[in-house]
């Protein structure tokens, strides 16, 4: 039985983890490699690293970091943030990233999805979609939800699947940061709309939220940041809980 995946997400700025991390037993909680190891050991199924640096040297720093992470951990990881060309993808994959995630660049240049998929295969193309529900319509947003587009979430999801995306990472801007649970209705509809795996993101606050997104939201994986970073939810405990709810997880 294919299991549901639990994916901690790390925000990276200039090679360091940001957005607050609160591990008491880590020597350097800002070091993404240390954190990655910690999550791997506690049973994370995959990791996502989102680079939010804006400096000129960002690419070199990121590539260096990807190499270190790939050397240190033995589970798959995705790298996203600022990827806008096949060359960007090339260097990240060559240095050990398993998948790359594209967001705004895919909206601006949808053909990028086709190019990456045909060169490296769909399995490494994650298309991240941020959407906000406005008057019953789920609209795609860019720049972390700040910029609205005219794209409807479900139309865009269908298009990225057709263009060769291997997976969709859907973040609901309505739920993100609320800790009130994932956008399960939209997630379930996404699963009916496309036939590629869906990662739920935005809103995780309790273990019950994870169970709900797998059952009601039909999600294939669930991603969260702060609940893991601040140790509000421990992965081993979460997986035991999910198993008690008859959800298949890797323990």
């Amino acid at each position, binding site marked *: 039985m294919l*299991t549901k995946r639990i994916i901690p997400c790390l925000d990276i700025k200039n090679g360091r983890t940001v957005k607050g991390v609160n591990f008491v037993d880590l020597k350097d909680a800002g070091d993404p490699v240390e954190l990655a190891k910690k999550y791997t050991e506690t049973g994370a199924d995959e990791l996502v690293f989102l680079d939010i640096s804006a400096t000129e040297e960002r690419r070199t720093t990121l590539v260096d970091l990807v190499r270190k992470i*790939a*050397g240190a951990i*033995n*589970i798959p990881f995705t790298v996203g943030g600022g990827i806008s060309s096949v060359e960007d993808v090339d260097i990240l994959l060559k240095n050990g990233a398993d998948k790359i995630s594209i967001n705004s660049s895919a909206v601006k240049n949808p053909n990028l999805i086709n190019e990456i998929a045909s060169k490296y*295969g769909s*399995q490494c193309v994650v298309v991240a979609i941020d959407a906000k529900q406005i008057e019953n319509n789920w609209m795609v947003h860019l720049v972390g939800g700040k910029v609205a587009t005219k794209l409807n979430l479900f139309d865009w999801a269908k298009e990225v699947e057709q263009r060769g995306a291997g997976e969709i990472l859907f973040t609901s801007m309505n739920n993100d940061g609320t800790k009130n649970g994932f956008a399960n209705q939209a997630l379930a509809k996404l699963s009916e709309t496309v036939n*590629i*795996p869906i990662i739920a993101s935005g809103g995780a606050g309790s273990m019950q939220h994870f169970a709900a997104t797998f059952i009601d939201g039909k999600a294939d994986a669930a991603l969260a940041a702060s609940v893991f970073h601040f140790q509000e939810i421990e992965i081993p405990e979460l997986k035991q809980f999910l198993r008690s709810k008859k959800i298949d997880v890797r323990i």
Partner: protein
Amino acid sequence: MKIAIIDYGAGNVQSVLFALERLGFQGILTDDWNEIKTADKVIFPGVGEAGTAMKKLSDKGLAALIPTLKQPILGICLGMQLMCKSTQEGNTKGLGIFNVEVIKFTNQVKVPQMGWNMIYNLQSPLFEGIQEEEFMYLVHSFYASKCDESIATTNYETEYSSALQKNNFYGVQFHPEKSGTAGEQILKNFLQLTTDY
């Protein structure tokens, strides 16, 4: 020990190199016939599209070389699929080492299968120390059916071959280099295989 990793421009061979490093071995990424022939172990990795990959292998003359190799060789993911008779992906003819066709999952399930799934019916020294129903990381849209050469199976839509073996040729559909400590154990077992067939 000399470990050759076949270089035909397939994506992400770095993970395999890193996994070997964690086990204390240094792999050589190469497309050189002599390097490959004289290696103690050969790893045939692969992600991407079958037709393109097969063309690259043929262009480099590697498609002719691989079936003649005498040392233990391990195909991973697409590498394993290309060792089969044929694959539906791009209607590609394979290397014909394993007598099985590679076909696509239907849309009754999400395609690709992506994530951790169990391997069972383990029947090979490759799985020494690995328990039945161990989890492995898989990403694939096509699969090899269950056959005489199956040495492990997995269930997704149907029970299929998640590992194959014929003489010195081994193939795994999952990614041992990305499957935690159990995956590393499988790689270690492969490196310990003898050439006595």
